[in-house]
């Protein structure tokens, strides 16, 4: 049997208590989502598991919800996934290519252009949201996945990280590849991308969560409920609760919050393994 180290006990107690404090709201959401709306109205948020687990989740995933009753949470989940993945993958691709151009092709103004890109870091999406909206509406891209994703995938942060990484790759590697007959495209695909795997996964995780949590942008860009994301859906349920004449369906709101939580947590958990593995494997 493993010996218990009593000197470590206070630390563990502290950690366990902290973990519980952080988990409590999540647990309350899960528990609440398994009760009926009537119960929640009467007794408030719940700590025990109720009997309506299956029915609640079934109804939000497959029954049309929200203000307009025209879209299911399942559809919203898919929209959110498309936004999250499109956003993250697009950012990784665009920023790795941009950084490759800046670092390896010593064209004139490369540094200048880099700093221009870098400066856009200072401007959050919210600042350019009106002009971006104007452009997209002129292009007729409102209410489309393209309009939802493409304007956001240019990434100063990503370009910056890739640039710093590429700069740390020894020049001899490029020279060796040149002598081995690799063109610039081949060098990128065969050498640079596999080396930056770790970087890419890290950036992907961060960007997926940023994309998933986008709120203002989808609100502006989509007016049709079939393009609505989970986050918009949650808001709509609460809104209909307050403004509508129905019984407030807090159980469904809680269930959708859980849905909105599971995916990013899953992404982090899955990719973190790869992330750590990449850290251990790669050696420049």
């Amino acid at each position: 049997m493993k010996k218990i180290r009593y000197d470590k006990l206070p630390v563990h107690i502290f950690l366990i208590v902290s973990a519980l404090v952080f988990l409590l709201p999540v647990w309350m959401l899960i528990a609440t989502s398994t009760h009926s709306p009537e119960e929640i109205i009467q007794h408030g948020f719940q700590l025990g598991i109720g009997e309506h687990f299956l029915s609640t989740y079934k109804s939000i995933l497959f029954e049309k919800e929200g203000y307009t009753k025209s879209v299911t949470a399942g559809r919203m989940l898919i929209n959110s996934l498309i936004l999250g993945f499109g956003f993250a993958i697009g950012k990784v691709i665009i920023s790795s290519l941009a950084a490759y151009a800046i670092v390896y092709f010593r064209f004139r103004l490369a540094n200048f252009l880099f700093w221009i890109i870098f400066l856009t870091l200072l401007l959050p999406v919210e600042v350019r949201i009106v002009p971006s909206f104007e452009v997209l509406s002129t292009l007729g891209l409102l209410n489309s996945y393209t309009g939802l994703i493409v304007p956001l995938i240019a990434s100063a942060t990503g370009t910056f990280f890739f640039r710093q990484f590429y700069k740390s790759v020894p020049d001899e590697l490029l020279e060796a590849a040149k002598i081995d007959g690799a063109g610039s495209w081949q060098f990128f695909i065969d050498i640079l991308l596999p080396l930056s795997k770790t970087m890419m996964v890290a950036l992907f995780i961060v960007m997926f969560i940023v994309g998933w949590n986008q709120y203002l942008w989808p609100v502006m860009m989509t007016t049709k409920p079939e393009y609505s994301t989970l986050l918009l859906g949650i808001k709509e349920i609460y809104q209909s609760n307050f403004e509508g004449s129905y019984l407030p369906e807090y159980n469904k709101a809680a269930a959708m919050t859980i849905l909105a939580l599971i995916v990013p947590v899953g992404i982090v958990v899955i990719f973190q393994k790869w992330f750590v593995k990449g850290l251990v494997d790669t050696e420049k």
Partner: protein
Amino acid sequence: MYLNIKDVDKSYSKEKKIIHGLSLEAEKGEFLVIVGPSGCGKSTLLRMIAGLEEIDRGIIEIDGQVVNSLSPAQRDIAMVFQNYALYPHMSVYKNLSYGLKNRGFDKGLIEQRVHEVAKLLQIEEFLFRKPSALSGGQRQRVAMGRAIVREPKVFLYDEPLSNLDAKLRHQMRIEIRKLHERLGITSVYVTHDQVEAMTLADRIVVMNEGKIEQIGTPDEIYNTPASVFVAKFMGTPPMNIFQVKISNGKMDFLGIEVETGSSDDTLFVGIRPEAIQDEESDISIEVAVTMVERLGSENIIYGECMGEQVIIKSKKTPSKNDTMQFYIPKESIFIFS
């Protein structure tokens, strides 16, 4: 000539020229070692041959073909880098085969060649390991293997042994020479280590400040250095150099008059540390010992003689502040104008 470099210039900025009108030739199968202090342009010269640097003026020919405007891959050269530059994410096998794959070789042929080379370099058992799992010496072999597997026209080595420890460096030096004798591929080897130069080269090229100081066999370089620079650079410890005044075509050096044809005011006189002996000979000098380095088989004695610093290689073991008698045979004195 197999490798022909004619009147080549290179500068990175307008003020500073790296290579000045340099010409160099190598026969097929020759092992050429370029040696010089850091910043003398030797690596730049090698990179110009490889096509990694453009040249401002002049011609570079390999096997009768002007390669000035060819890319590194088209020049059919292979290069071994100082830090090996192995692809860290590829196995040894993939590292070796990458160049062949890019040249569209048949899979079966690639496999055959990689295995041949791996056997030659005794890295067969590591073929499916990543470079990070190899020791320095093994990585060095893989880097060599990547060059050999292509069967190029010219091998270029850019200080390939300077990342290894002394023992391994010695061992790899011998192996490189053996490999060269076996494969007979024209090689250009850049190093700042004159021992590597002496032991590996068919001919040594001594460079200084972007120019060639002397080209010759190791013996020629050692026994008839063309300039003070070459004399000081080749040989450890370095040659003792004294500045000597001339009067009436004669110099008065260490009490002995030496006839010279030169009418220069000052000359440089060089004596190798190993030429200063215990046995009685033409010139006798008295040395006040200031320091002794014990090497085991012999000692390096640092001392003062008539106000000049001297270095002597000797079997004697004096202690500090001793005054000792040494002799110099006349024929082992070098005179440089």
